[in-house]
């Protein structure tokens, strides 16, 4: 599942990951993401940080605090590239990974497939 308020990103990732055989669900905001997660039970959620309403940080925290969704792998995908942003995502929000935009599409797709195959464990 890709959660981003930028239409271009949703189209790009749907094409990119879809062309490699993945079923991609695109969602534009956090509230809808939570609703769709219950129905679709995605293997991986790719979350933008800067979204109207719930931010990616807040949404990730909700996902990781709920017994229904906490085992879902969550990766942030953001133009925020400071180390401080990554620490906030990994430690405070409980994200499993962090991608920085802009992405190298081939490398990004390989990383997504690594996350799907073998999501990082905490310690």
């Amino acid at each position, binding site marked *: 599942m890709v959660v981003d308020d930028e239409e271009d990103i949703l189209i790009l990732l749907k094409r990119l990951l879809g062309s490699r055989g993945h079923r991609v669900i695109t969602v534009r905001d956090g509230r809808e993401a939570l609703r769709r997660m219950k129905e679709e039970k995605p293997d991986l959620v790719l979350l933008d940080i800067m979204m109207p309403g719930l931010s990616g940080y807040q949404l990730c925290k909700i996902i990781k605090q709920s017994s229904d969704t906490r085992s879902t792998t969550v990766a942030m995908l953001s133009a925020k590239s400071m*180390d401080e942003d*990554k620490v906030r995502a990994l430690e405070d929000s409980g994200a499993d990974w962090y991608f920085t935009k802009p992405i190298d599409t081939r490398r990004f797709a390989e*990383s997504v497939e690594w996350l799907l195959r073998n999501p*990082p*464990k905490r*310690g």
Partner: protein
Amino acid sequence: MSCISIASGKGGVGKSVLCANLGVVLSERGYRVTIVDADIEGSTQGLLFGYEDAHPTLHDFLSGRAAPEEIVRSLTPTLSVVFGSVQLNALLRELDLERLGQLTSLLERSSDLVLVDCPPGLEEDTRAAVRASGAVLLVLNPDIPSVAGALKMKILARKAGKQTAGAVVNRVGGEYDIPAEELETILGEKVLGTIREDPLVRSSVVEGTPLVSSHPEAPASNDIKRLAHRLAEKLIQHK
């Protein structure tokens, strides 16, 4: 850039063992290396080299009780170590952590490389060790808590105006390891080496002899030698 902090942000990643072994390998290649055990509250270099009761120590220097030349112990013609104290009374003394910088400046004059074994965490003792160094080598395990620790250490280094010299991934070989190329991307740092998990490390600690000396053909020893070669190329200014 000839004084490097070996630092992690998170404890227990194996930086003290790495520091000792790197020091041995580089000194055996003819570089003059000095290790400073700056892990003020958890000194282990004495244990790793079989000098548990070393005296005087870094703590004596930082509390004004010993001169720099008194605390530098030559183990071989090219390897010296400034041990820390494990005595409770030494830990309870008032220590002037800023003297660490004076010490490393002095040691740099007589060494090709000074390796500073940093404390874990991001407290004042770690910040003082980073300030006393020219650059920071990040050590991490291939897991998320360790990545977060390394990122925090990068932030600390940047705020102290210090460069990062790359990353070393220690204890690799687990089923859920994060691959080195993914670590490079998230850290924004070159991975200079990966070191395999090796049960012989524990034996070498018990023996009080660094792994590269006690088990020179062990997988982790070979990994450390490769890393030392890269570090020498990257960091050491020939004098």
